[in-house]
């Protein structure tokens, strides 16, 4: 059994897992430093849960290797890796009390009885479940079960904590609370965490680094800010909230930027990846970066079609004269059939090379 915490880096080297004839995960290379909070992000079926299960040892690798410093891990069974894991459905032992659930990992490690008691009580306090320690999991609410699962995973002081979409079964308010709670535990206990989610907001708010996956392949590894402001390709842009994706053609280079034409619009933006004049491209911009022009004559004339009330802001779908639909967010009151002029912020408009569909 490995002692938790004492390692410098965890290295995934070309980790590949095939199911049937296709790669669920293809050649994942990733180095995780101690103390990092890494999120594997992607739509369902992208291979993020496969990656997590490979790390935990619950799925054998088809190719590749996993190393903790100089120790090879992928040949060890899960019980010898010394990790903690929080499952999507929590996987609490239904026949054991909260206290016994949390103590389970310590008892498996043959920790002395008094030490088991001390650390279990500490973990129960950590997740504020003192009043429920003798209840069975079935008697707890979803959020409480979630906290038991987290306590059970961290009480063994694992070298790595794996979390498989742990918040997806909670309601919106609790999800926000637990998000903060998980990040707080990560920091105060000095954990190293690999977190899997399909929720980009969750990923951005919690992580030190994001690994964006699509169809089993890594699309981008970077800080939340890098992934948020400069997605590596149009698929990530789509996933990261660039709701307006317009097929365009590059007209000319303009300094650092490019000018593109499409759907009767002429737009300026910054290119991501090499694209030259005349080539097909995709222009991407978030709804919140589409502004309503201050004075007439300044922008593109559009007609409002659908308005959704979203509290402080409105979300609207508008259509240009040439029939190109665009989404925008605004604090101004709009009504369907209003005619307005909009401006697309050139600094926030990204231009990606158009790829044939299905290419990564």
């Amino acid at each position: 059994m490995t002692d938790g915490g004492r390692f410098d880096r965890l290295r995934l080297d070309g980790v590949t897992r095939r199911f049937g004839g296709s790669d669920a995960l293809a050649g994942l290379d990733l180095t995780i430093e101690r103390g990092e909070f890494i999120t594997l992000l992607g739509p369902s079926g992208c291979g993020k849960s496969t990656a997590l299960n490979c790390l935990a040892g619950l799925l054998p690798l088809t190719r590749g290797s996993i190393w903790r410093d100089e120790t090879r891990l992928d040949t060890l069974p899960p019980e010898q890796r010394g990790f903690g894991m929080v499952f999507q459905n929590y996987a609490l032992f239904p026949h054991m009390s909260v206290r016994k659930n949390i103590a389970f990992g310590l008892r498996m490690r043959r920790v002395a009885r008094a030490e088991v008691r001390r650390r279990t009580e500490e973990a129960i306090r950590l997740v504020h479940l003192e009043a429920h320690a003798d209840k069975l999991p079935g008697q707890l609410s979803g959020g409480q079960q979630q906290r038991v699962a987290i306590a059970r995973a961290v009480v063994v002081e694992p070298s790595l904590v794996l979390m498989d979409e742990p918040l997806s079964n909670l309601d919106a308010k609790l999800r926000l609370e637990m998000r903060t709670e998980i990040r707080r535990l990560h920091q105060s206990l000095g954990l190293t965490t690999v977190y899997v989610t399909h929720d980009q907001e969750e990923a951005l708010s919690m992580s030190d680094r994001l690994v964006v996956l699509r169809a089993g392949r890594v699309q981008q590894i970077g800080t939340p800010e890098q992934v948020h402001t400069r997605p590596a390709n149009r698929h990530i842009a789509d996933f990261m909230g660039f709701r307006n994706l317009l097929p365009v053609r590059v007209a000319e280079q303009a300094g650092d930027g490019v000018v593109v034409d499409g759907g009767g619009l002429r737009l300026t933006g910054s290119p991501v990846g090499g694209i030259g004049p005349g080539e097909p491209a995709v222009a991407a911009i978030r709804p919140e970066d589409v502004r309503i022009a201050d004075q007439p004559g300044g922008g593109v004339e559009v007609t409002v079609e659908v308005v959704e009330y979203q509290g402080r802001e409105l979300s609207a779908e508008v259509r240009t004269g040439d029939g190109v639909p665009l989404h925008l967010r605004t604090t101004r009151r709009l009504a369907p059939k209003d005619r307005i002029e909009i401006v697309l912020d050139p600094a926030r408009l990204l231009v990606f090379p158009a790829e044939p569909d299905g290419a990564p």
Partner: protein
Amino acid sequence: MTPVAFRHRLAERGIDAQLLLLGPAAVFVAALFVYPFCYGIAVSLQPVEGGPFAAYQAFFRDAYQRDTIATTLRIALPAALLNVLASVPIAYRMRGRFRGKRVLTTVLVVPITLGTVLTAEGLLNFLGPTGWFNRVLLALGVVDAPVTLTHNYWGVFLSLVITGFPFAFLLVSSYLSGIDPSLEKAGAVLGAGWAQRFFRITLPLLAPGLATTFCLTFVLAFSVFPSAILVGDPSGTTRVISIAAYEAAYVRYDYAGGAAAAIIMGLVELVVIGVVLGLRSLLYTGSTAGGKG
């Protein structure tokens, strides 16, 4: 109160037209179980001579009759226990999906379709003094004289295992498949080896199902009749209680005695089931899921 409101109030307590769907089952149970059972009790309480309990007194006074209870228990309890215990590792290994699962399950379950008589016939041919089994043992020099496995206790025991195991296996498999597989995964990540995972996680969740399975296979084994005669020793070591009932009713034409033996048989079964279910209630019997789905 309007009739509509009244109907709503009844429906809230589960009384509505759908209740009529229970009709056929109720008729069935009444005609095929309750009536014959009460009739049996009545017959057993009307012996030709003596008071109402004379047939019971006669049963317990005569060691030849009384001992059938112990004889039957000696066969049925170990057979039921073996059926349950043998199905656990096999069903455990066969969880999840793998190639050939359907074929293997079919092979394990086929004996259910064989009648007791066919099983007995096969046992006599296979395990008899000149059967393959003994011929192989003799040829290998393991034994000097054929081993006697038919027309005694072992013949009946084996026959009960062959016909009872498929039941136990099917039941245990379905109980096992109801246990959330992520629980064992969680156990593994937390450092539990396979034995700890099995004994601390799976077995406690499976135990109530094993108790139920035991009860069902026990009842099947306790009412053994054809194989006790065909591959057993019906006048000695395998003179089970159903033989006693049969002889009383159809050899001696003592209907009260036969009915009394049958009622006693039912009571013994009830006691065993009561004990097992009593023990079962001490176990954790709640959900076997690991949390929200």
